[in-house]
């Protein structure tokens, strides 16, 4: 029987980490993920876990230590947010290039500057091409479940890539909600032992990790990473299926909510999906065929699956909680629209940048997006595909 609890997103993540019982956790505090290493160091202090907790002096060192630990042959985990991830950036790329299945909990927060401690996805978007698997979580339950599935995915021999589980800073990290936990022994069995083929601490086979990789080799090594990322898609589906057998909770590459017969749809990630579902329920009562595609697996990006799933709708709004400052649109918008294009599917699409720096996105805001979509369907016209939601401007009503 699963255990019913009430936990915040951070607590849920720390609980998953406790159940996973990794060999090493190296972390540095940063709002809003600080609680994760706090809770975890309590587990260490009380002997609840076997983990060696390395209280590093920076996030750069947190990821460096995770790399050292994972390469040594152990399971290493960490947690961070925003500027912490920015400081890690160099090591984020090195972790994936060395094919080390480190698991990171990213509690999404705006990257400075100016300084802001609240939620947006600019931290995650900054590493979207770094070769990490990126799973997004709508709520504490998903953050917990994704964390439990993380090692099975990352450590798969066809993958061997690091993985980050994202959730919204404060909105889910600090909000206490009901959650169903899996029993410790079941988690232990599900996650299994980490048995790397080659590792630093194997004195039977000393290895060298992290070479100077010149013109004759780097291209091939990077492409190996690209292939591993493609492989990850099937592995994620397989692991999710196993997870469903254990918990009854079903996860795919994304979640479709009222999408099957939808005429207008929103694509978004993390907690905004919850608000969107609420709005959809209201709109459906009014006979408006609104739907949602909530991305769970952002990397690898499910190009064909997303395109197929949206092929029947008449207009799509893609919501980006980070502006790309490229005069073209947000990252998710680019991914979704290019997925459609290469699959030769044309659906009117519009982009909304929203929720920057923790700006609250209310049901009314989401409803206004659907209203805009109805207008697009009606007029078949998009005057500006790169829009802002919830931004104060001159001339606002």
């Amino acid at each position, binding site marked *: 029987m699963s255990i019913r609890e009430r936990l915040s997103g951070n607590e849920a993540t720390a609980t998953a980490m406790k159940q996973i019982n990794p060999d090493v956790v190296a972390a540095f505090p940063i709002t809003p993920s600080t609680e994760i290493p706090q809770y975890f160091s309590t587990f260490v202090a009380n002997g609840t876990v076997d983990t060696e907790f390395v209280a590093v002096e920076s996030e750069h060192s947190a990821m460096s230590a995770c790399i050292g630990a994972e390469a040594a042959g152990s399971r290493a985990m960490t947690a961070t947010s925003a500027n912490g991830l920015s400081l890690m950036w160099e090591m984020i790329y090195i972790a994936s*290039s*060395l*094919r080390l299945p480190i698991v990171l909990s990213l509690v999404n927060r705006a990257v400075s500057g100016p300084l802001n401690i609240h939620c947006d996805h600019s931290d995650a978007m900054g590493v979207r091409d770094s070769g990490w698997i990126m799973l997004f979580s709508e709520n504490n339950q998903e953050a917990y479940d994704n964390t439990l599935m993380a090692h099975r995915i990352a450590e798969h021999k066809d993958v061997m890539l690091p993985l980050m589980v994202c959730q919204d800073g404060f909105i889910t990290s600090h909000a206490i909600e009901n959650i169903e936990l899996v029993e410790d022994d079941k988690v232990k069995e599900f996650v299994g032992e980490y048995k790397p083929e080659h590792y630093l601490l194997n004195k039977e086979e000393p290895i060298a*990790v*992290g070479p100077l990789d010149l013109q*004759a080799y780097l291209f091939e*090594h990077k492409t*190996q990473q690209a292939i*591993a990322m493609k492989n990850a898609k099937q592995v994620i589906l397989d692991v999710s299926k196993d997870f469903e057998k254990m918990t009854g909770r079903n996860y795919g590459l994304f979640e479709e909510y009222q999408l099957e017969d939808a005429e207008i749809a929103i694509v978004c990630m993390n907690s905004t999906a919850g608000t969107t579902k609420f709005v959809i329920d209201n709109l459906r009562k009014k006979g408006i065929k609104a739907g949602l595609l909530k991305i769970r697996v952002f990397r690898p990006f499910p190009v064909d699956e997303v395109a197929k799933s949206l092929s029947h709708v008449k207009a799509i709004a893609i919501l980006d909680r980070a502006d790309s400052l490229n005069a073209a649109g947000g990252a998710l918008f680019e991914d979704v629209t290019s997925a459609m294009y290469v699959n030769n599917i044309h659906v009117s699409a519009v982009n909304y940048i929203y929720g920057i720096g923790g700006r609250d996105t209310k049901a009314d805001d989401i409803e206004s997006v659907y209203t805009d979509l109805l207008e697009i369907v009606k007029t078949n016209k998009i005057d500006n595909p790169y829009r802002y939601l919830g931004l104060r401007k001159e001339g606002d009503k």
Partner: protein
Amino acid sequence: MTEINNNTPMEKLTPGGDIYTAGNAREFKTGDWRSIRPVFLSDKCKQCGLCFPVCPEDAIPVNKDMLREDFNYDYCKGCGVCSKVCPFGAIEMKEE
């Protein structure tokens, strides 16, 4: 030993650039860097040991009887450090 080279296809390269054959740099000969060569004059050598540790290239073999042998020209880069530390003139530098 090391079967990886510039023609190895991607599928056969070790993931992440890891190397599982520690110490295989020995297969990479650096002797052709040399423009001058040390010549070991064994009759002058007193086996004092001063030249053993200074060689950057590990090119002065020392046998189990703790006696130095002739240079390993596969690796010697011809820096001449050994020649300068020898108090007995037992290492002469000559043009290649």
